[in-house]
């Protein structure tokens, strides 16, 4: 999986490419833990994310929890397949998805 971060003031966009699963989720988790300081708006761009597993959802929720204390988070460009995963797991009710 590739992680591309772009900062614009206190906003940060994280574009994910590939698969977010048990193999790659720890990498994203570690990467994000050191990146959120001063960030008030976090955007996950899923345009090139092929797949997300339960382990991947866990990392996304961890970031949602962190951002709820310091700003906001949204997920954009979600494919129909991943949207169905969000829907069936109830994540569509927790996350801001655009």
């Amino acid at each position, binding site marked *: 999986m590739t992680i591309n971060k772009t900062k614009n003031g206190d906003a940060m966009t994280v574009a994910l490419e590939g698969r977010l699963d048990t193999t790659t989720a720890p990498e994203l988790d570690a990467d994000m833990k050191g990146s959120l300081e001063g960030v008030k708006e976090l955007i996950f761009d899923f345009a090139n994310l092929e797949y997300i597993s*339960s382990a991947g959802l866990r990392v996304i929720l961890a970031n949602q929890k962190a951002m709820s204390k310091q700003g906001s988070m949204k997920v954009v460009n979600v494919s129909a397949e991943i949207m169905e995963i969000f829907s069936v797991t109830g994540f569509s009710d927790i996350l801001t998805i655009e």
Partner: protein
Amino acid sequence: MEEFYLEQRLRALDPALHTKMTGSIFALQKLLLSFLSWFPSFTDHSILHSMHVLDFCNRLIGEEQVGKLNAKECYVLIMACYLHDIGMGVTEKDFHAFSEKIDFGDYFQTHDKEDISETIRAFHQEFSGLFIQKYADLFEIPSEELVFAIVQTSRGHRQTDLYDETEFPQVLCGEDVIRLPYLAAVMRLADEIDVAADRNLELLFDASTLTRERDILAFGTHDSIRSVSVEQERIVLYTRPKEEKFIPLVEEVNKKIQTTLDYCKDVARKRSDLLITQTTSVVLPEESR
């Protein structure tokens, strides 16, 4: 939940498969609450039920026999414990899609087709199986053979013929054999025990709000069974009935466990080289514990 034999053995034999299993739990915690949309009261199919079933599986198998299971068998049984009731919470969209694949037989000759929740309840093992097939990637189930084994073990928890060699074969998976009949038999018995044992009634329900006699009797029966102990040779229901009328109802529950025990024990004996060591289910007063 003292033993965790299956979990420990899986981690020792195949840490990567263990990681996939633990990674699945996160989504399952939320998914397993979705049953509430169809069944807002009375029975618990949350992850607590799954964990109790897994705990009973561990106790039924025991420390000695778990050493005879390979990593894939441990993984299949753990995942099936978590997923066996997942069909109780299917979305309406999945309900309609899955319904096209389920053989309902003559069910709708005597039941209302518009009663979706009742249809789900009656066929939830089939909905669970189809859910697991569809969302196998969410749980990172690594092969089709493992998906099949988890689906069948989950379906096997009720209303399926565990002697059927087509539905419950020995599954060759890589170099390992998954002894499906044994796994499904243990799973069915563990679920039966937990249905009798707990269902978290005191946690979830205010009994004073019950009005239907059927519900009051069901609650009182489960409330009378204070705990269940799985020993090497027997299953013990420790009871404290609040009223006399619950005593025969508890005996009925015990009889049902004994019937399931006899069936599952026979399946294990005839269709695998593993055993269910327990032979009887008994009712004892709580104070004798």
